[in-house]
């Protein structure tokens, strides 16, 4: 389906990208997502619950993430989210886009070569 092509969502807002990356590690609820985002970004990103859920609600509407079954032994009242296949594709497409940018930056000598 052409309309569902991952490219349609690019460039992704950074918070949405972080959410996709965080959920790439497995289903999680809000607070866990925030903790993973902090980790991913070395603490430079620390979204509020409000911002996070606004982004997640939209990602859910767009079909990039979905509610998931609560893992056994976890708090049954919380809602857990997981990546959908489309979400995974979009995360990959966004990562490739960023990779191209990084390679370009390196060619321009704006970034040292990887060690």
């Amino acid at each position, binding site marked *: 389906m052409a309309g569902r092509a991952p490219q349609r969502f690019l460039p992704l807002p950074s918070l949405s990208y972080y959410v996709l990356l965080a959920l790439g590690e497995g289903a999680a609820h809000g607070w866990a997502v925030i903790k993973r985002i902090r980790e991913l970004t070395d603490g430079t990103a*620390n979204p*509020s619950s*409000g911002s996070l859920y606004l982004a997640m609600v939209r990602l859910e*509407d767009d079909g990039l993430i979905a509610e998931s079954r609560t893992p056994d032994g976890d708090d049954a009242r919380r809602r857990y989210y997981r990546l959908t296949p489309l979400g995974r594709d979009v995360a990959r497409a966004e990562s490739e886009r960023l990779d191209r940018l990084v390679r370009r930056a390196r060619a321009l000598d704006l970034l040292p070569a990887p060690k």
Partner: protein
Amino acid sequence: MSAPRLYDALLRLLVPAWLRRRAGDEMRATCAERLAAAGSPRERRRELARELAGLVRVAVLARVERPTFTPQERRPVLDGLRQDLAFAVRAARRHRAVAALATLTLAVGVGASTAMYSVIDGVLLRPLPFERPEQLVFVHPTIEEWRHNPSLQANWQLGVFSPPELRAWLAAQRSFEAAGGYTVRPARVPNGAGSEHIPVGQASSGLWAALRVRPLLGRLPADDERDSVAVLTYAFWQSHFGGDSAAVGRDLRLNDHRVRVVGVLPPRFALVGADAEVWRPLALPEGMRELGNHYLRVVGRLRDGVAPSHAEEELARVLRGVDGGDAGHITHGGHLVSPVRQATEALRAPLLVLGGASLVLLVAACANAALLLLGAGAERTRELAVRRALGARKARVARQLLVESVLLGALGAAAGLAVAAVAVRLLVAIMPEGVPRLADVGVDLHTFVAAALLAAATGVAVGCFPALSLSRVDAAESLRTSVGTARGGRLQRGIVVAELALATVLLVGAGLLTRTMRELQRVRPGFAADGLLAVKLALPWDRLYPPGADPHAADAAAAAYVGRLTDAVRGIPGVSDVALTSDMPYSSDRGTNSVEPEGYVPAKGEVVDAGRRFVSGNYFDVMRIPAVQGRTLGTADDREGAERVMVVTDAFARHFWPDGRWLDRTVGFWGEKYRVVGVIADTREHDLRGDEDRFKFYVPAHSSSDAGGNLLLRTRMPTGALVPLLRERIWGADRAIVVEEMTPMPERMARSLAEDRYRTRLMTAFSAAAAVFSLLGVYGVMSRAVVRRRRELGVRSALGAPRRQLLALVLGDAARVGALGAALGILLALGASRALERFVWGVPRLDPLTYAGAAAALLALSLAASLVPARRAAGVDVMRVIRD
């Protein structure tokens, strides 16, 4: 407030509902977890700040980037709304009486205030129907000399131009894009058996330019065409030429002159204060002639960016130089006012007072509707509790209540529009004569929207109370007990007290005006008005004093002409006598003169001025005004060559000759000396309030032109029978005479009170409506109080309390509410009546009797309203209460 509650409150306040529904709980939980995970209090505070700031950011982003409802969500909301509406209609049907009363109350409030403000808007506020009306101003010389003259000082800043002044200013001024002078005078046109008067304007061409008028047909007159051409107003063209476009080019006879119609003005042409039907060019006399003759009004269109103060300075400069700086010239400054304000200045205060009163009524109406709905809401606590118990969410039930209230508000507003449409017509119909711009007054939609919004807001506010209490009342609790809460009672009582207070304010106003009216009707004018017929004629002065005639010969001819006329009228069987006066009683006629009473030394700067009437020798006999000292005038005094004598009023004599020695002293006026032969009591011939000039004097008219057109007939005949005979005799004497009015004197006097009557009627109607509202309010609150206290009343009755005691219990309660409302109302009225100060006459504004009367009426009303509930209370059946 704890952090989670703060977060929660802000979440509810800021975050749109759709997001809250989907993620609100998650957001709360996440926030709580984050705060719990914080290591130190300091970090916790930082995290909380981040969370709260996040909410603000979300509040904005969620609204900007996405519609409030996603398509999937819209349906249920709409369905819910439809459900609510259906439910509201069913509820309204069930509580038919309450719904009808609330609707009616709101309709009266909205209707009355909308109608009143529509009139105010139409008369006072609406701009003139010209392009960029805000640039238009009336231009006035200020006349310093008038400032110190008691009878002219009201207008000293609103002077008018004399011809040389106008010419000089028009030539020199630079502040105005265009300006023109005009004057309006009656002119005679033939009409069937006799003649009629039409107002004819004369305008310099600058007026048309300033108003940016373009003719509907033909063209506008040019300045150099002088008297030979005319343009018709649209109304005159329709009434006299049947709207025939061939009218242009035809001739029109004005005062025996033939003028050519060159154009027709557009229908919307309406210059307030200048109701001319035909306009001609303004012909100004040459040179400095008529320098002291001020009769030209001026309208100008200010240039963009020119300050009015600059234009005023310029005008003053030009006027001071107009006669080469002659110190004797009296015009000194300039003054600009907006045309609408100018024409309606006199009506401003009277109309605004009524507007204020109608606003009070609207507030009272809203209060009453609120009471009715609150009462209905209280009775429905059980129903709502059931719905809650069946699983309806709080918000859902609250929304339903709101929908119901808003529905009633909307019904009230719609009915109010209907009331307003009728009321506007009524208000216009009973308006005293002479109010400008009434013809176009219709329901003003802005006003209506404002009033309707207030009604709807009342609905919402009222809807909120049950909704709020709902969230506190425990469903189970209210199901278990059949007795309502006592808490709602206090609010309702507060509203009833407010309602009573507002009604008291209006009642005090109505009382003061009614007493004023009664005092005015009781005034003894000092003459016998019954059997007196006032006939106002316009004599053909242009024929009696043709240009270039010898003034003495013309005077003699005019005197003979008037003599023939009065003889013809006197000859009518049933007319016992006819007198003449220069100032028709109870009209705008008001002649004054500076006088020099013998032996009186004026204080420095005092202008010795008195009301002056030229009367025929038999005036005092016909009016039946006796002399209190000396004698009145007789026919012998009114002959050519008779000694110059005058009669003065008591106030005149006392003021100028406090020693009482007035007899045979002289009064100088117009360069002649008149001997005082008698004193009459102070009469009220100009208006019943006695606002006329304090001092008056009467001099014989010498049967001449000074008193020419005003005839006073002493007769026993009914007016209806006399009028055709009079017309016949008058037009038999001269067909060029215009009969302006024939009115019995008592009717003239009554008509002079038209404005007072109008005000009194409206205020009485407003206060009656407010009184009915408070009657309903007290009844409703007391009934519910009895229902609420049924158990207590039943127990009391079971314990042997006599019926009388139970009655007294309820009535005492009502009396407390009534007394509180009346007391509060009196306090308010003490201040509010200041607005009525200038309309109240013959009674003090703070008249204790009126205030006490209003308070007593309201108290009696609240007692009466609670009689039925009180009887119900006394009849409470113990067994039934216990069973329930």
